[in-house]
Structure formats: structure tokens, C-alpha cells
């Protein structure tokens, strides 16, 4: 364990607690969880996450004390084989501490929220025992994410990368035997598998990039790689291009870009705190962090940067169009996340690392806020649904309707299953859930990029950078911003305004304080978060802070034209959405007003442009066919039945039965052995005749012997 020489002050020795505080929390809950009440379990987990946050604050402070110099702290040796020297080293610089703060800060708030959310969720699903498990997995996620952001080499980053992928799988498939509506199904576990496998495809790209890096640059450690890269960029530029593009594959997997974004909407099957923490605020930003960290490499290859930017911009626009046609409240937010991630990836692709990180931070705030508020809405509907259903059950009981008293699952009480996340079941919730309404409004305005909320500043900076250097990216992002405002407006009108379209919405109840207070904290951050990097001289705080790590960037001043266009488009979009959804609120059962005018375009949006179906047709079904062919025909019928059974087993049986048994053994050896016996018998039968009992013949044989001996003596 050694520190770099420049460190004299600071709390760097606390670095391992980033990882081990959540681990301790999860171990306590794992071993003693069954003795604790739910409150204690949740408090332990939140304290563990909070401890990680405190450590992050102290580390950030320490880095600032050292004027942003990098501090590397080797914690343990990992692999030392030949030229490969991998260690678990904590890297504390401005970039990693920024990520640590975001992850642990937002993470702790979500832990607290989850205490309240999961308390109700496990009761709605009649699985009270699973409460502890959720917090164990949440703490595991925090630990893995900390390993990711504090790693000093690409391989340590990858360890955390895989760890968060695992936690994503565990948490998406938390209700693994159900689907989102509570019916017994494979749907949730399939969603978890989809996430894991799609991530795996991305990890494959990451690993190839890692191998190329080690082969040509000789190391995984950040500083050594960045030092060796320029030389290779001169001599063999294709290496750097390959490394960066394979890393882009990893980013596309983890940060849900085209073509690997398909797992994120399905990941909404997990409980809402999971969607907030992992799939909005932290895990999906790992890809953006990776690109930002590798800035030194990416700046060497502008062609790769351009590809990254285009991928990001394309994803932003594509996902925004899909979000317009979604009815599930969480799916809208999921596609919104993909779209916003596209913004971030486009930003770092263009080289605007500060802008990208800025948007990452603000997006964490307001997207977590939106997701958690959506969770509040969903639970509100669930509460209303159960309150209403109890009344109905009491009424129906007298009429003798067939039902089960014990299990008040959704199916048993209604002919259809009730979906508390479907916006078509909502409406007028601003009256019954006012706190949630205002929180949601703040989040929406931040996301739509309305001045002076945080999203305005971060998105504006990206658009500014794009307008200066990458016009096509600028136009794609602007149109995506328009759609963003539109679908968020649509959501607000559909959910909170108008009349309630279902009984559950009529009886919806507000969420408890343990859920709403963390949301208020996030709301405040969404409002004032823009202060991190204002485009005015002297206020480029984040740029200055990150500049210690990724190189000084000149902070751009506010461009009124870009800002004006984006604000105007956002307001226009909200206005149009009010025309369509707000002025004449939808009634129950009414189809979406966009369906008729847009026709097949809206159908495409509704069905996410049939991308999943396309994947199934092109990749998955042929793959299944090939593997079925390989398994059934090649492996089973050919290899097993034919080669093994017929050829090998048959030959062996023939050999042992016919050749060896019948011929060699029976006819050969047995015959010989039996012949020995019968020969002995016949010889003895013959010789027995000598013993005829007559003395005279014995005497004769004596005389014969004498004669023979004499003859021998004569002839000797």
C-alpha cells in the first residue's frame, strides 16, 4: 500500500471504505437480516450507502486540497504474470470523485426511498420475506459501482463493470417468477436474461478492446496506456481506432445505445428504485464515464470520435420517437433515458467531455426524481386499486361471486389484470397525489430543458458544442429535444390532469414521507444543479474541476441563439401536447389522439419500431434454429445416436459378442480349455487300462522296464 509522493494531506486512506462500507452493510443484512425488522434492514443498507457518500465527499475534498492531482493508492495485488501487472488500486482524481459523489449520493437517497417503496411492494405481491434481499442487492450494486469508478486500470473498471451487470440482472429479475402485472410468468426473468446477455455482447467488445490495449500498449493501467497511445497512433493508427470502436461496443451495451439498447425498456420489469438507481442514474452512465476516462485515446482518432457522436445522436432521436407512442409510465421514462444517454454519448463523442459529464450529473438528479415519482404514482394506484377492490369484494361477497378470500391477486378480483403503470388507467392524479404531482412537474421541466432548471444548462451546453463543430449532430439532438418536451408534456397531461380513468386512480393515495422526502431533495438538486457549470465566465466550476483530469477545456459562453431555439422548441412542444392531451383530456378507453393523424408512424412508435421483433427474426430465431440443429441433429442424432450408439457401441458389441465371445472365447479358448479336459480324460481313460488289477501284468511291466534299461545300457 503506497501513496504517490505528492500526497501530504487528505483522507485518501479512507478509499477502500467506498467499497467495503456497502459490503459490510450487505453482509450484516445477509447474516442477521432475518432477525431485523424491515426498518432496521433498510436503515442498515442506507447507512452503508451513506457511509460511502461521506467517504466520497471526504475524498473529493482531499483531491481539491491537492489541486486535483491524481492520487493512486494500491490496495492489493491481483494478477502478476509475466508482463501483466494488475493491481487493485484506488484512483482518486476529480473525474472519479465526481462519479463517486453522484453514485453514492443519489444511491443513498434511493435507498431511503426504497425502504418505503419496497415495504408496500412486497405486500402487494405477498412476498414479505423478500424485503431484505432487495437491500442486499442494492448494497452490492453500490459496492460494484464504486469499484468501477475508483479503478485505476481498465481491468479494475471491468471488474466493476461486470459487477454492476450482475446486480442489474439480480435486481431486474427480483420478482423472477412473475411478470410486471403479478401473474406467474417467465417475463421478468426473461427481461433479466435479456439485460445480462445484451450487456455481455457489450462486454465482449470491451474485452477485445482490452486485449488490443494490452497487446499493443503493454498495460491496462490508465496512465501507462495514455502515455503509450500517441506513439502507436503514429505508427499503427488502426490499433487505436479498433480499441476505441470496440470500447464503443461496450458503451453501447452498458449505456443502452443503438444497437444494444433493447434491454433497458425490458428492465423496467424490476422494482422502480432499481429503474431509478441503475437504469437512470448510475449504471448506464458507466459507458459515458468510460469514454470520458479514455479521452486521451479518443482525441487521437477523430474518425472514431465522429462515429461515437453519430451513434449517440442517432440513439437520442430514435429513442425519443419511440417514447412518444408508449403508454406505460415507466417505459416512457426508459426511452427517455436512452435518449438522454444518447445526448451524453454524443457529447463525449464530440469531445465535449465536460458537457457530457455535466449532463450525466443533472440527468442523474432529474431522471431519478422522475422514476421515483413514477414509482410513487404506481404505488398510489396500487393503493387505490386495493382500497377499491376491498370495497368491491365486500359488496360482491353477498352476491356470491366466485373468488378466493386468501389471495387478493389482481387476477382473482377482475376478469382482466389491472396494470397500475398504464397511463390510460390514470388521470386527475394532481388532486389525489399533490406532492407527487409537483415533484413530477419539477422533474419534467428539468428534463425538457426549461430555463432555469438544471437540464436546461447541461443540454444547452451539449447543443452549443454540437452547433459549433458537428451540424448533423446538432440537428438530430435538437429534434430529439423537441420530442423530449413533447412526450413529457403528454405524460403530464395524461397522468395528472383530466378525469380519473379508472377506479384505482379515483382512489389513489399519496405516498408516505419516507418516499417523498428523498424526492424533495432530488427536486432541489434538479432546480439548482445547473449551478455546477454555468456558461458564464468564472462559473465553469465543473469544467475547471474536471479539467485537472481530462485536460483544460475552454468554457464556452452562453449562446443566446442556440439557447433560444432550444427553449422555444421545448415550449412549442409542450403547447402541442396540451392541444392534443391537455385541452380535451382523454376519457377511459379512448384511443390516443395521435393514432389517426400519424397512422402507421404512430403504430411504429407504439411498437418501438419493431426492433425486438427484427432481432428475433434476424438473429435469435436463426440462432435457435442453428443450435437446435446442432443439438438435435449433429449432437444427438449424428454424434450420439449414430457415432456413439451405432458405430462405436455397435462395433464394441460386435467385437465383444461376435468376435471375442463367439469366436475367440467360445470357439478358441473354450475349445482349447475343454479340449485339455477331454484330452486328459481320454488319456487317463486309456492309461487307466494299465491298472487292470492283474499282478501278472504288473510284473510284465517290470520286466519290460528291465529290458528297456538294459537296452539303453547296451546302446549307450
Amino acid at each position, binding site marked *: 500500500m503506497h501513496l504517490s509522493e505528492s500526497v501530504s494531506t487528505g483522507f485518501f486512506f479512507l478509499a477502500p471504505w467506498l467499497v467495503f462500507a456497502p459490503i459490510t452493510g450487505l453482509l450484516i443484512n445477509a447474516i442477521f437480516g432475518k432477525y431485523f425488522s424491515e426498518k432496521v434492514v433498510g436503515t442498515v443498507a442506507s447507512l452503508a450507502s451513506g457511509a460511502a457518500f461521506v467517504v466520497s465527499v471526504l475524498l473529493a475534498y482531499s483531491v481539491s486540497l491537492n489541486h486535483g492531482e491524481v492520487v493512486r493508492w494500491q490496495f492489493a495485488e491481483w494478477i502478476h504474470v509475466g508482463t501483466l501487472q494488475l493491481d487493485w488500486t484506488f484512483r482518486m482524481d476529480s473525474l472519479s470523485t465526481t462519479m463517486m459523489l453522484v453514485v453514492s449520493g443519489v444511491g443513498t437517497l434511493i435507498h431511503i426511498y426504497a425502504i418505503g417503496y419496497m415495504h408496500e411492494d412486497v405486500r402487494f405481491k405477498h412476498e414479505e420475506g423478500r424485503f431484505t434481499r432487495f437491500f442486499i442487492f442494492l448494497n452490492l450494486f453500490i459496492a460494484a459501482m464504486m469499484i468501477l469508478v475508483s479503478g485505476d486500470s481498465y481491468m479494475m473498471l471491468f471488474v466493476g463493470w461486470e459487477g454492476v451487470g450482475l446486480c442489474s440482472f439480480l435486481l431486474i429479475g427480483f420478482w423472477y417468477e412473475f411478470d410486471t402485472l403479478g401473474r406467474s410468468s417467465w417475463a421478468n426473468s426473461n427481461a433479466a436474461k435479456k439485460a445480462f446477455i445484451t450487456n455481455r455482447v457489450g462486454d465482449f467488445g470491451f474485452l477485445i478492446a482490452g486485449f488490443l490495449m494490452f497487446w499493443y500498449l503493454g498495460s491496462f493501467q490508465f496512465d501507462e496506456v495514455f502515455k503509450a497511445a500517441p506513439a502507436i497512433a503514429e505508427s499503427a493508427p488502426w490499433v487505436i481506432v479498433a480499441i476505441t470502436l470496440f470500447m464503443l461496443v461496450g458503451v453501447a451495451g452498458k449505456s443502452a445505445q443503438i444497437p444494444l439498447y433493447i434491454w433497458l425498456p425490458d428492465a423496467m420489469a424490476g422494482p422502480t428504485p432499481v429503474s431509478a438507481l441503475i437504469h437512470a442514474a448510475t449504471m448506464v452512465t458507466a459507458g459515458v464515464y468510460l469514454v470520458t476516462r479514455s479521452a486521451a485515446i479518443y482525441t487521437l482518432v477523430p474518425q472514431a470520435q465522429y462515429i461515437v457522436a453519430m451513434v449517440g445522436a442517432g440513439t437520442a432521436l430514435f429513442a425519443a420517437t419511440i417514447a412518444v407512442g408508449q403508454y406505460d409510465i415507466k417505459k416512457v421514462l426508459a426511452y427517455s433515458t436512452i435518449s438522454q444517454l444518447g445526448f451524453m454519448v454524443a457529447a463525449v463523442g464530440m469531445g465535449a467531455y465536460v458537457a457530457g459529464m455535466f449532463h450525466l450529473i443533472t440527468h442523474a438528479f432529474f431522471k431519478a426524481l422522475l422514476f421515483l415519482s413514477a414509482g410513487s404514482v404506481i404505488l398510489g394506484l396500487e393503493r387505490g386499486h386495493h382500497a377499491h377492490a376491498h370495497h368491491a369484494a365486500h359488496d360482491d361477497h353477498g352476491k356470491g361471486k366466485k373468488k378466493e378470500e386468501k389471495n387478493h391477486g389482481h387476477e382473482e378480483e377482475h376478469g382482466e389484470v389491472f396494470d397500475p403503470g398504464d397511463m390510460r388507467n390514470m388521470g386527475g392524479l394532481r388532486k389525489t397525489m399533490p406532492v407527487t404531482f409537483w415533484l413530477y412537474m419539477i422533474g419534467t421541466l428539468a428534463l425538457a430543458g426549461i430555463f432555469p432548471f438544471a437540464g436546461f444548462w447541461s443540454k444547452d451546453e451539449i447543443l452549443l458544442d454540437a452547433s459549433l463543430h458537428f451540424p448533423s449532430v446538432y440537428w438530430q439532438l435538437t429534434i430529439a429535444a423537441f420530442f423530449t418536451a413533447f412526450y413529457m408534456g403528454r405524460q403530464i397531461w395524461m397522468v395528472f390532469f383530466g378525469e380519473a380513468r379508472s377506479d384505482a386512480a379515483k382512489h389513489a393515495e399519496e405516498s408516505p414521507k419516507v418516499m417523498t422526502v428523498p424526492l424533495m431533495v432530488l427536486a432541489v438538486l434538479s432546480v439548482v444543479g445547473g449551478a455546477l457549470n454555468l456558461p458564464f465566465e468564472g462559473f465553469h466550476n465543473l469544467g475547471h474541476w474536471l479539467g485537472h483530469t481530462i485536460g483544460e477545456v475552454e468554457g464556452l459562453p452562453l449562446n443566446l441563439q442556440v439557447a433560444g431555439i432550444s427553449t422555444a422548441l421545448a415550449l412549442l412542444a409542450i403547447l402541442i401536447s396540451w392541444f392534443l392531451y391537455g385541452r380535451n383530456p382523454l376519457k377511459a378507453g379512448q384511443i390516443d389522439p395521435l393514432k389517426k393523424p400519424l397512422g402507421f408512424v404512430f403504430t411504429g412508435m407504439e411498437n418501438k419500431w419493431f426492433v425486438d421483433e427484427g432481432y428475433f427474426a434476424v438473429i435469435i430465431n436463426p440462432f435457435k434454429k442453428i443450435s437446435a440443429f446442432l443439438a438435435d441433429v449433429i449432437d444427438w442424432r449424428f454424434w450420439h445416436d449414430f457415432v456413439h450408439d451405432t458405430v462405436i457401441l455397435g462395433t464394441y458389441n460386435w467385437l465383444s459378442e461376435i468376435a471375442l465371445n463367439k469366436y475367440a472365447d467360445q470357439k478358441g479358448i473354450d475349445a482349447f480349455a475343454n479340449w485339455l479336459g477331454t484330452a486328459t480324460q481320454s488319456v487317463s481313460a486309456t492309461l*487307466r487300462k*494299465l*491298472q*487292470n*488289477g*492283474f*499282478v*501278472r501284468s504288473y*510284473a*510284465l511291466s517290470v*520286466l519290460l522296464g528291465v529290458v528297456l534299461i538294459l537296452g539303453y545300457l547296451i546302446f549307450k
Partner: protein
Amino acid sequence: MNSVPVDYYVLLSAILFTIGAMGVLIRRNPLIIFMSIELMLNAANLVFVAYASVFKSFSGQIFVFFVIAVAAAEVAVGLALIVQIFKAKKNINIDELNSLKG
């Protein structure tokens, strides 16, 4: 020179011996067989005495002395046996004594 080569005696002895042997094999009366055995013993005695005479030693004669004594003993016991067998079997065909037939 009145002398007989000793080999004549040996030859005579051999012939007598062979005749005795033939008698043992041919006859079925055990008494005759016994007598043939005595004849064979006699033939051997003859050779002993012949060589005792050649080498001027008494050892040969003494040996014959013993042979005669033993022959006497043997005859006594043997005849007793034959008598007992006759009492058991009621005839003295030696071929009747074949119960050791294997």
C-alpha cells in the same frame, strides 16, 4: 589247465533268471509263480558264488548264506498268505486277485 571262464557261469545265471521271470509271468498258479521266484534267487546266488570263487573272497558266499535265510523266511510268510487267500477265494487263480483294478 582245468578252468571255466566265469562268464559262462554268468551266462547260465542269466538264462536261469530269464526262465524264472518267464515263469512268473506266464503261470497263473501262485505256487508256481513263487517257485519261479525262488529260481530267480537261485540264479543270482550262482553269480555271487562264482565271483566269490574268482576273487578268492568269502563275502560272496556269506551273502548267499543270507539270501538263503531270507528266502526261507519269505517262503514261510508267502505260503501262509497264499493259504489265507485260498481260504477266502476258494481257488488259487492269481487273476482272481484283481480288486485293485483302477
